[in-house]
């Protein structure tokens, strides 16, 4: 497995995430898309920290650390997102994103 493989996979993940975000008609699915995006990023970081080495510190784990933080933030984001989705559901009686469009123009 070379770096390229990981990158390709993460790229695919990212694209899928974007696709989901753009097309899904359900807020939850959008949340999933977002998670995909974030995970593709994490994958990138880990892969890079594994493969890319720079002179002064041969074994740097920055990437992995970043990935961990990334996961944490993703979780936090998910929480907030779900809370807001609840509020939306209460106010609009639906979580279809295209029905939440009173603010426009």
């Amino acid at each position, binding site marked *: 497995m070379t770096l390229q493989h990981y990158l390709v996979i993460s790229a695919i993940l990212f694209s899928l995430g974007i696709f989901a975000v753009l097309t899904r008609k359900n807020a939850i699915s959008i949340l999933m898309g977002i998670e995909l995006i974030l995970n593709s990023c994490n994958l990138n970081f880990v892969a890079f920290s594994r493969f*890319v080495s720079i002179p002064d510190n041969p074994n740097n784990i*920055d990437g992995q650390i*970043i990935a961990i933080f990334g996961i944490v933030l993703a979780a936090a984001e998910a929480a907030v997102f779900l809370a807001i989705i609840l509020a939306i559901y209460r106010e609009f009686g639906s979580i279809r994103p295209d029905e939440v469009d009173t603010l426009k123009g």
Partner: protein
Amino acid sequence: MDSLKNIESLLYFIPEILLVVFAAAVIIFDLIVKDRESDKVAYLALVGLGCSLLAILITNSIIGTDEPRNLFFGMIRLDEFAIFFKILLILATSATILFSLRSEELDVKLKGEYFALLLAVTFGMFLMASSTNLLMIFISLETVSLTSYILAGFLTHSPRSSEAAFKYITYGAVASGTMLFGLSLIFGMTGTGDLAEIGERLPEVLASGEVTALGLLIAITFILAGIGYKIASVPFHMWSPDVYEGAPIPITAFLSVASKAAGFALFLRFFYSGFKAPGILDSVDWGLLLAVVSALTMTVGNLAALPQRNVKRLLAYSSIAHGGYLLMGGVLLTSDGLSAILFYLIVYLFMNLGAFYVVILVANDSGSEMIEGFRGLSSRSPLIASAMMIFLISLTGIPPFAGFFGKFFLFKAVIDIDSGFYWLAFIGLLNSVISLYYYARIIKAMYFESADETESFYSTKSALVLLTVFVIPTIFIGFLNIFYSLSGNIALQ
């Protein structure tokens, strides 16, 4: 320069620590305090901000003489630039708290967490202003975003507010995700998260051909998506009108000033420290990219503002446009442009917050944010009307108010010797002509039209006092040297 270890860093981290402590304190205090009707909580939050400000000044006096510090193994950097923004942010937050007390739409007397969140978001912005590492950048960005989402949606039982929060978070999540992807690419190219090192490494890898200009372009564009969403620049601006309209007015004011300022802090630090190396500038025409973005941003903002009848939304678009003006300063990545941006941010803080404050007062009086609420304000409350007039004229950028000097500074930065950006300056100036048109509509409503209702305008003494706090700087900043020199010195670092 070598960076400090964790423990010794704490000394310089006191302002942030104080914010966190007070955030916690506010919540606890809110739980124990019995008297629900008092504003004690708010005042506690203000005290917290005050302490933090004090601490900032102290740290400033410490680093004032010798060179800035890199804290926590170079995660964040404490320099005059950071301190400048911190002070700016504290002012903005304090103003927001006071607004919140005046605002009737949001009944804050019961909600300690509201102020806790405000402190928290300020904390996040502090980090944004001072982070020098990809990781830190992302964390701070997310901190700010998450708290902002909640604040935007703070009006439970208000569909508009919830919708705002929903759009905000969806948009924000995607944007920050995209940014993170870009960050990861940068990390991959350089193998480091430290901006300074990135600045050193990128030219090498570009030179060595390991990284193509295209790759860099993709990475940077992804990152721009994140930053652009924070500063609401085209094409990443579309969340802001809706969110600004939906969120409670104090929060709108806060977002339009503080969050934008923080975004610019990030933007500037990112580009100035990470991407000024000649090799990178040659790879892709960043100047042109930024110029186009800024031109689009101001034009879209102003044009879209033209037909608005909701003053809040109108100001939202106008703040988009101002984001465009501010970007002009960054086009050449010169210290001149940097200082111009800083100066304009000071001015913008006062005039924009002032304008929003008037909107709050009018909304309190008329119950709506529509332009009709301003009819005949000049006769009903001359002081408030003239204050609003001053803010709007200043936003347009007409002498003798500070806004003009700020714009002048920015334009001067763009039309630097033989820069090819005269066209950008022209666009900017034409935009200020267009902007006059919709600002003037508010003035017209206030002065040329007669009031619908006749009973005198509802406003308290303290409200007027607070207003003057914004009016006076808006009038005089332009005439005072200190601010120019201040921004100038910071820029030189």
